[in-house]
């Protein structure tokens, strides 16, 4: 019954961590020359399953067959010898090493005791040309772009002679143009006979490249389908396990008065480099302004300057017409600014504190939460219980430390705290990062509700889909400047992608 056309068969894979089943009886087959998508939400067990295949984890039970032979992949070296290579979501690269050193590490060619750099250089050049993966082998990783770093990862896998390649969320860090190039590379590789597994939660990508798709949900396999014969909505339902409304109802914006005014803002980052260079924009009540851009183009500094965490060098920030430049954090907060920070565990929450205490972080010093510096825990707790109900935070009690909550519920704690303060301006920085589809949907609805209440919302996100779905207007940040302002209805991913890489919009008024 062995089917030799299947290069990989995983049968009844179970993997337990401290009694929790990350993989619960999963089956998967991969055929030669095909691109198989592995679809599932965050935490569904995709990465665990692939770590088993690449030898980083060993399954609790179940069988793995490679080219019809049952194998035990004890460590990455065994996987390498079987021709299995993985491109990880977080690149496994040494920043201070050269591209060449990164590629050869663990699979070095030597001449006597010495590394044979020349031979390796030639081999890498050959591979680069054959698969169209241009990158300078002598550059350091810290000197090249993220897309180039991904090529290094692909070259690493090819250099080891892999013909089974696993890609873990490969497009998460790429611009739309880079995604198109990447998809081209994938197709090229499969044409050369490589079998490819693509881990993703983006339905659109699956439609573009994959032949078949295997869906897993909470550690169990839901099924495998031909991509051509299944709709996006159906896939989303299979992934989440219930009906998902993919389209958000977004009524027209009723734009009110100007809430936030940013004039000629210049901000230096912690290294003393000018991170925001002459930034100006306005934000009105009842409006969502999306800030698109690649990570590291001034988004951090913008949020930090607006919330008073970073010194503004020149320029002005006005909130409700009031000068708020370089004011204290608490003054800004009390002037009506709520912020959902990008890193919820580092800036949004105090992890060992209870849900109640975290919900009171912005108001504990005021009545009725405290009097004469003494906290009233009964008030803090009843306030927390009310918000837990209102924002549907899933927990057994308000005294549970937030570190025990799931990512989605942690984010709900922040949302509850910030939105319940009824501020005029809401800064949402990557509000759905790392969350599953259900939680994303919930947070998007909350933001739209606030918009309907007439709040001004600044949405900074690296997820273009999110920006496109929610924003009424979009500005694109590139290298500390606004490289263009567009409307979501009239723009395209391609145009945004170009603006994100700094290509100025034609006819825009930038001198």
């Amino acid at each position, binding site marked *: 019954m062995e089917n030799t056309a299947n290069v990989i068969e995983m049968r009844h894979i179970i993997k337990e961590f401290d009694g929790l089943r990350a993989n619960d009886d999963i089956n998967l087959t991969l055929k030669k020359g095909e691109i198989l998508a592995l679809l599932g939400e965050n935490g569904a067990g995709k990465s665990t399953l692939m770590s088993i295949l690449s030898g980083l984890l060993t399954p609790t039970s179940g069988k793995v067959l490679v080219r019809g032979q049952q194998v035990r992949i004890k460590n990455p070296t065994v996987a390498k010898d079987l021709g299995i290579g993985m491109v990880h979501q977080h690149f496994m690269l040494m920043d*201070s090493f050269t591209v060449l050193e990164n590629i050869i590490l*663990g699979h*070095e060619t030597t001449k006597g005791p010495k590394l044979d750099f020349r031979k390796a250089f030639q081999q890498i050049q050959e591979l680069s040309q054959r698969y169209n993966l241009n990158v300078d082998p002598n550059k350091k990783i810290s000197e090249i772009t993220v897309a180039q770093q991904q090529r290094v990862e692909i070259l*690493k896998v090819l250099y080891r002679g892999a013909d089974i390649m696993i890609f873990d969320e490969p497009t998460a860090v790429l611009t739309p143009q880079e995604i198109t190039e990447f998809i081209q590379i994938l197709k090229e590789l499969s044409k050369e006979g490589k079998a490819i597994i693509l881990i993703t939660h983006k339905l659109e990508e699956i439609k573009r490249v994959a032949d078949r798709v295997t869906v897993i949900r909470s550690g169990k396999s839901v099924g495998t389908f031909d991509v051509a014969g299944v709709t996006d909505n159906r896939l989303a339902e299979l992934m989440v396990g219930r009906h998902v409304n993919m389209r958000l109802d977004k009524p027209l914006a009723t734009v009110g008065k100007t809430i936030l005014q940013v004039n000629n803002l210049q901000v230096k980052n912690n290294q003393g480099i000018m991170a925001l260079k002459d930034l100006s924009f306005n934000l009105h009540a009842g409006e969502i302004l999306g800030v698109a851009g690649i990570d590291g183009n001034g988004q951090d500094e913008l949020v930090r300057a607006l919330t008073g965490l970073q010194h503004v060098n020149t320029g002005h920030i006005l909130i409700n017409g009031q000068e708020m430049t370089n004011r204290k954090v608490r003054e800004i907060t009390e002037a009506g600014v709520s912020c959902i920070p990008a890193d919820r565990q580092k800036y949004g929450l105090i992890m060992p504190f209870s849900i109640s205490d975290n919900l009171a972080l912005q108001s504990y010093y005021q009545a009725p939460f405290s009097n004469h510096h003494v906290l009233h825990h009964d008030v803090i707790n009843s306030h927390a219980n009310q918000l837990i109900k209102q924002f549907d935070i899933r927990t057994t009690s308000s005294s549970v430390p937030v570190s025990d909550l799931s990512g989605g519920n942690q984010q709900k704690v922040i949302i509850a705290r910030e939105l319940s303060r009824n501020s005029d301006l809401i800064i949402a920085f990557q509000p759905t990062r790392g969350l599953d589809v259900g939680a994303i949907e919930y947070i998007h609805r909350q933001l739209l509700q606030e918009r309907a209440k007439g709040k001004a919302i600044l949405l900074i996100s690296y997820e273009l889909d999110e920006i496109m779905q929610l924003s009424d207007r979009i500005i694109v940040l590139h290298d500390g400047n606004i490289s263009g302002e567009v409307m979501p209805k009239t723009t395209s991913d391609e145009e945004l992608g170009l603006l994100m890489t700094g290509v100025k919009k034609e006819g825009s008024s930038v001198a």
Partner: protein
Amino acid sequence: MDLVAILSLLVSSTIVYSTPLIFTSLGGVYSENSGITNIGLEGIMTMGAFSSIMFNLTFASSLGKITPWIGLIVGGIVGLIFSLLHAVATINFHADHVISGTVLNLMAPPLAVFLVKAIYDKGQTENISQSFGYFNFPGLADIPVIGQILFQNTFAPAWVAIIVTIILWWILYKTRFGLRLRSCGENPQAADTVGVNVYGMRYVGVLTSGLLGGIGGAVFAEAISGNFSISTIVGQGFMALAAMIFGKWNPLGAMLASLFFGFAQSISIIGNQLPLFNHIPSVYMQIAPYAITIIILVLFFGKSVAPAADGQNYIKSK
């Protein structure tokens, strides 16, 4: 004293004081490039110094001139065994590297002094009879001026240290082993995914620092102090650590930095024989090497970049 004589004195004493620092800082370079911070170098030097002196006192009469050289090896091996504590604590038990290193530093002096008391029944040992000699480089010593300054009456272990530096630099940057060792200090998780044995490499890194730190302590004891007491190793391990940082975690850099610190130390010792310096009160001269160490650390510690994962534990998931 004429200029050549002054330079000759300065160079030879700089080299003598640098040698222990070179060996020990090279050990630090290997440990930290593998990802294990090692502030226990001071304690490792103490153990190397103690064991080499004990060996020298016991075997000098039967082994003769070769004794101090074998003493170096003994000091190195004892240092290596002592560093095993640090390796087990940090690599297998994921202890904080600084705390584990501090344990070595706190443990070594009382242990060594206790053993001295138990074995010799006094607070410090006798002076050794077989010390390192000086030699003239055949051929090179005859070069006028330069030969007199650099190659006459020179200190043999220093030249060993320089050769070891070059070999260790070559291993670290030109061989497969070196690439893998550095990868563990840079990104152990990534190293693991390409099949590098992170724990194994880190053991090699730490034990190398034990071997070289032990040799460093032995050189100091057998060439400079001549006996072992509680005040034999007082800060040289930390100076070697500073030299490693100043030298940017590179063997060649660490060697040059060690020569600089050796120069600072030797100035404080021979300053009273030198014109100009002999007017400075000796207490300032004695403070100088430590003050310079602190200043260098303040100026360079923030700027020079350590291996990215230096000091981070790596816990392999099963």
